[in-house]
Structures are given as C-alpha cells and as structure tokens.
C-alpha cells in the first residue's frame, strides 16, 4: 500500500511538473526541429513538385478542352469524362486493360510460382537458372520489345521460320488487333515472371522447415504439403506480388509502345492516355481525364486489396 502512495503513476508526476509551452520549445527542441526541416524539406519539396503538383495539374487539365501545343484552352468541366464513358472506345479500352492486367498478373504469378518451385529443388544448375529467369526482368523494355518483334514478324521472324518448317503460315501477330494483344501479353509475362519467381523463391526458402517435415512425417505428400501448407504460408508473398504486379501491369507502357505503336487492339488505359495526348490526336485535356480515371482505378484497387485481401493473409 505504501508503495502505491509514493510510487505514483509517471503520467501524473509528469503532468504536474510539465513545463510551460515556451519552456517546452527549448533551444534544443528548436535545433532538432530545424535539423528535421533541413533533412525532410528537400525530400518533401521534391515529392510535392514531382509527384503532387503534376497530379493536381493533371486533374485540372482534365477539365479543359485543350489541344496539345495550343496556348489556349476552354474549361469544359466534366465533359472529357462524359465523352470517354459514352464513347465506344471506353468499353474497348477498359476491356483491353482488364484482359491485359488479369492475364499478365495471373500469368506472371502462376508461372513465377511454378518456376520458383522448380528452382527451390536441390538440382544442379539452379544458380544459373535463377539468373537466367530473372535476367529478362532487368532488361530494357525497349530492347526486349524490338527483339520479340523480330521473333514474331510474320515475314522473316524466327517464329514464322519455325512454322514454315512444319508447313504452317505465321499468324498476323502485328497487324491483327487480337493477336497483337496476345503477343504483347506473352512478352510481358516472359519479361516479368522472373520477378515473381525470385520473390516466390525467397518466400519458399523462408518457410519453416520443421513444420513441413512434421507434415511429411504425418504422411502428407508433396502436393498436399504445397496446397495445405506452402500456399497459405506464402500468402504474404502472394499478397505483395498481387499488389505490385497489378500496379505494374496497369502502368505497362514500353512494350506496348514499341511492339504496337498504333495501339490497335492493345490500347490499355495508360496507352490510350498517351495516344490521345502525344499520338496523332493531341487531345491533352481528354488524355488527362483518362489518366485521372486510371489513377482512380489504381487507388480503388489498392484500397480494396488492403481492405479485403490482406485479411486472408497469414503472416506467420
């Protein structure tokens, strides 16, 4: 009891002896604050100038009827948004974006996981295989696009040559809008599956071996162990990849630009925004509206993933 009387809660003691605001803003605190400003302000300024200013500029431009290159524009409010959502292009662009994103995210993750499982096994040459699988991810998208364009060329491409060898004509990969999308998806998945594979491989190697061995002793076969143990334990990795690959796919640009400059069949939201402003149309305001729509979609997807998908993640 005595102890309770003398050993008063610290908060009470501090509250009683709290300094006045002037005293609290001591020379040392002030100095710390200026150090904080000196360190943080340059970064905050950079973020403000190069991230938030363009973002708000873009939102403002989306309310204008502005031809790129013209010094004048007309304020049209939400007309650019209405035009986009009521035009036949909207369904095509949104559909292409959805197909491209779902297939590339799904393809990269599933193939990446399979490759990671193969690389996780104790066989010879895995170090080389890991490097080979990851290499395309760090290659320039422009270079990759040009090389694959040559491979797919129906006239004198490698693929056409192989097909001719078995008496088949090459499909019109580049001119046919539907095949163009397939072509770009194939190359995108090839380029990015190394990233998923390496991240999954790290996840696989951090799985608790004692638990896996216990399951094995209990008679669970490899497939059962993968399905019931590895996959749920990999959920943080899967969740991380889902967010990063989806954001990356929705912003994919270089391969589409190089392989299908007209965007015929491959016009995703981001490429449509590029074509509208910097392609032949020069509709800068309309393009800004498409960019804002893309931004909203990215924001919603990320929030939904954080809100709902993360709940199903097992962190340990």
């Amino acid at each position, binding site marked *: 009891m005595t102890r309770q009387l003398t050993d008063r809660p610290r908060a009470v003691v501090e509250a009683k002896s709290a300094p006045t605001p002037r005293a609290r803003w001591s020379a040392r605190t002030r100095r710390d604050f200026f150090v904080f400003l000196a360190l943080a302000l340059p970064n905050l300024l950079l973020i403000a100038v190069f991230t938030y200013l363009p973002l708000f*500029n873009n939102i*403002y431009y989306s309310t204008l009827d502005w031809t790129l*290159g013209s010094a*004048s524009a*007309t304020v049209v409010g939400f007309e650019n948004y209405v035009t986009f959502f009521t035009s036949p292009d909207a369904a095509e662009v949104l559909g292409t974006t959805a197909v491209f994103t779902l297939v590339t995210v799904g393809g990269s993750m599933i193939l990446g996981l399979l490759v990671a499982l193969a690389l996780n096994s104790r066989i010879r040459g895995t170090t080389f295989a890991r490097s080979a699988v990851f290499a395309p991810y760090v290659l320039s998208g422009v270079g990759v696009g040009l090389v694959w364009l040559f491979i797919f*060329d129906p006239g004198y491409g490698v693929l056409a040559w192989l097909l001719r060898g078995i008496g088949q004509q090459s499909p019109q990969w*580049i001119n046919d809008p539907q095949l163009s999308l397939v072509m770009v998806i194939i190359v995108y998945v090839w380029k990015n599956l190394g990233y998923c594979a390496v991240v999954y491989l790290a996840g696989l190697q951090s799985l608790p071996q004692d638990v896996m061995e216990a399951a094995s002793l209990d008679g669970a076969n490899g497939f059962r162990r993968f399905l019931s143990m590895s996959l749920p334990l990999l959920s943080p990795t899967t969740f991380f990849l889902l967010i990063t690959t989806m954001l990356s796919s929705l912003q994919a640009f270089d391969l589409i630009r190089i392989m299908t400059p*007209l965007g015929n069949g491959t016009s995703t939201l981001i490429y449509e925004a590029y074509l509208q402003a910097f392609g032949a149309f020069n509709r*800068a305001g309309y393009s800004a509206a498409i960019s804002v729509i893309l931004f909203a979609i990215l924001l919603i997807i990320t929030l939904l993933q954080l809100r709902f998908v993360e709940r199903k993640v097992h962190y340990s």
Partner: protein
Amino acid sequence: MALNLDRRHFLGLAGAGAGAAALSACGGPSTTGTTAGAGAADIDFSGVKPAASIDFWTNHPGKSQDVEKAIIEKFHAKYPEIKVNLITAGANYEEIAQKFQTSQAAKSALPGLVVLSDVWWFRYFTNGNIISLDSLIKQLDIKVDDFQKSLVADYKYADKQWALPYGRSTPLFYYNKDHFKAAGLPDRAPKTWQEFGEWAPKLKASSGTQYAYIYPALAGYAGWTLQNILWGWGGSWSNEWTMNCDSAESVAALQWAQDSIYKDKWAGVSSKEAADDFAAGITSTTISSTGSLLGVLKSAKFNVGVGYLPGGPKAESGVCPTGGAGLGIPSGVSKEVQLAAATFLKFMTEPENTAAFSAATGYMPTRTSADMGAVLAKTPQIKTAMDQLAVTRVQDNARVFLPGADQEMAKAAAAILTQQGDVKATMAGLKTTLEGIYTKDVKPKLKS
C-alpha cells in the same frame, strides 16, 4: 488495414489538395480567351539581325543525316555568323511532332527550324505554332517560283505560305525484275490493278515468294498509300470536308484489296516496312515511298524496277498522292532566330542542295532548276519519281487535315485486310469517326 482519417487529418489533406489545385491552375494553357494563331499576321523583319545560333530539328528522312551534316557544313562556310545545330528530334515524323508539341506546351526549348510532315503542318498552323513565311520569302528573296508548284501549294492556306518543301516524296511501285522475267511478264509496272490481278498468280507461282504483292504496313502510313486504290476505283477518304469513305466506290476498292488477300491469296500485309520486305525478297512487288528508293537499291540482291502507281477501273492516271515533309519556322521563338532559320531554310532548299539531298535519299528534288544530271546518271530510277510528279493528286482533306485520321484509317484497314472485316460496315464506322474528329477538332478552328 484501418484508415484512421480524423477531422484534423482530413482538413489537412483537404487544405493541401486545395492549395495544390490552386497552384496547378496557375500553369498550362490560357483559359481566358482564344489565342489567335501567332503566325496569322505577317511579321516585319526589317532591322532584325539573325541569331548567332539555331537548332534544326529533323528526323533525317530517308537516312539523310550525313547529307544534312554536309549541307550544314557548307552553310557554315557561307554564313559563319550563324551556327546551325543539327538535332535528331525523333525517328519519324510522329516522334518529331510529339517533341515539338511538347515543347510548345512547355513553352521552352523550341527549335529555329523544324521538319513537319504532310499531316502535321496544318495542325501547327491551327494551333498558331508556326509563322507564315511570306515576309521572310520576300526579305530573303527565296525563289518560290522555282520550286515544284504542286509541292509548294501543299503548304498554302488562307493565302499564306506556312512551310516550304524539303524531303518530298510520292509512293512508287517497286517490282522485282527477275521475278517478272521468270513469269514472262513485261518489264514495267502494271498500268492498272486489274492488269496486276492477272499477273499476280503467275508471279507468285513462278517466283515461289510468299506474296506477289504486299500492302504497306498499317502502322506506317496506310491512309496515304491506300488513296491510290481508292482513287483508282473513283472513291476517296473524303471530298473536301465531306467524309465519303463509305461510298460505293470506296467500298468496292477496299473489297478488291481484301479479296486479293483472302480470296485470290496473292497479297499480304507488311508488318513493319514494306520496302524492307520487298528488298528481303518476301514479295515480288510493293508500294513504298520514293524515300525508300536508295535503301532498297542498296540492300536488294536482285534487279529492282520502279514505275508509276497502277490505276483502277475508274481512273488510270492521277492516282498518286504527294507526301513527305517540309520545313517550317516556329512562332514561339524570337525574330532573330526566325530570321536565322529562314536564312538556313533558303540555303537548304537551294537547287544544288536539293539535288544533293535527292542523290542521298531518293526524295524528289524540290526545285525545278536543280541539276539532276549526275544524280540520274547514277540512280536513273529517281527519274520515274520526278516524272510521276506531273500526274500526282492532292491528298484527301480527311487524311492530311484531321488529327488522328491516319491512325483511324490504319485501324479500319487492319479490320478489312487482316481480320477480313465487313468492308461496308468498317467504312461506315470510319466515316462516323472522321466526322466526329472534323466536328470537334477542326471545324471550330476553321471558323476564324
């Protein structure tokens, strides 16, 4: 994840947002009224001293970097007080236009002189991005009468001259002489597409190539070369500002093109560059720009023949469009820079320089007085392009004046030629699209 957005944070974010929005509204284009084209009025250059240095933005049409450098060196020798910086501003006309438009928006880093293609100059004009050259032509005594009349007329609008021709071209019919000989065909281009339709099966059978003819790549300038077939059948993309690409004649023309691929199976569509496909021996014939001539002659391992574009059932002549690029002067640079640029423009288009440019690229000489004797002795095929100029036709308004129309035409062509789409429905859809572009992007700017 829980979003802990209390009132204080919300107000902070809202304040930051409002501040940024207010700040952002300070930049960009003016919304307080329309800006008349800066080049609309003639500029008085009297008393102006040329700038000491200018940038020349080019995409080196027809792989012309070396000859451009050589001409600039000659210019420096003649005008040591003006330095010309040769800038590679893109790989093609679209990339150079993209850089130019972006610089206009940024209001900085504009060149003194810029290469502008047939489909871009009019947009620069409507945006007020280029100046009229009339006062400079007068002051510097540029001999406009000595230029090829039709090529100069391409850049005339509202009684003013907005550019002068530079790397100008027409499409040419390229054929593999060896294949023609093996098929027992005459050593000439076909007079009409009907005639070629009779030749094509023999050509394909005897040569063993994939195609007797390959249509130019759709990502290239499909709208440009397809005018040849449309005009031959009596159709067009447009008649003045009336979009008539869905007329019976236009539909018949493109139906014939589709049949050549799917029904008669002697034609294909290039994926990248028809001239390269032709030079690689994939096809016996194609249509490509005169700007590709020197490249084809250099890389082809067979005898190359060139001829006029074939006509059609309704028109055997006057079925060849002009094309290529000119040179213009931006409105957003100082008078001193504009004067220096015009001085260089004058030099660049002088007869001996246009002849040198033709010799290096295959593009047509833009001056009638250019001495082409030595050039033609070395590359006689250029003569065909020069002679064809007399039977060229001004391009359809829809193709050259509507922003993005070329791209829409290429998409329609892709639907017809690579997906076997219904020709009439595709062209009707294209007509609606073109009318939409005209109404929204061009018509309001023509009123003033």
